[in-house]
């Protein structure tokens, strides 16, 4: 069991109803964690539309999940 902080933005924040939380997870990758959270919160955005940032830097969904990090799943962006 690994513990991480997850911060939520935009559509994911609205679905989770919280801006951030500590998650205890069995997932081995960030993709696995996103799947867990999708089951928990009913996220409508598919995995292939999501990016991930770990400790404020872009990472890969298939990277090994590390304990103690801050995870942000990034929905499709819309700046400008």
């Amino acid at each position, binding site marked *: 069991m690994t513990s991480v902080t997850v911060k939520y933005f935009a559509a994911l924040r609205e679905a989770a109803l919280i801006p951030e939380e500590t998650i205890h997870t069995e997932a081995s990758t960030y993709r696995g964690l996103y799947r867990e959270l999708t089951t928990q919160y009913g996220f409508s955005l598919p995995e292939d539309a999501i990016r991930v*940032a770990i400790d404020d830097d872009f990472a890969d969904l298939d990277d090994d999940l590390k304990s103690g990090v801050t995870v942000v799943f990034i929905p499709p962006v819309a700046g400008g």
Partner: protein
Amino acid sequence: MQQFFLTGDAIQAEALNQLLKHPQAGALVVFEGWVRNHNQGHPVRALDYEIYMALAQKEGERILTEACGQFSLHGAIACHRYGSLQLGDAAVWVGTTASHREQAFLAARYIIDQIKHRLPIWKKEYYQDLPAQWVYCRDHDHS
């Protein structure tokens, strides 16, 4: 001169313009993105921008560094709003200076395109005729 700003206040275009003053610059190109009153056929009345601040700041600075490396610029500044915006508000401001116009035009185009493509910023539109919704850039980089 290379600076990237995120602000919850109205963009101060003239102040940003002044920051770009450079004795060797013969060209200033400015792009402003405004809140318009329609999107995909629906009347828009306002919008909210939400930003992942720490990563957006880093990524914005990276974009400007790339632009300064690719084009012969004397300066590059970009500023993006967050929070609630009304119709006609400037959501984003990009300014580039160079000795000649071509590099300034190309760099400004590069910067705004990369901002739209990469910056972790999300836009929620409020409509006259529909519930509000998050809208997504069609060429979002999710690689």
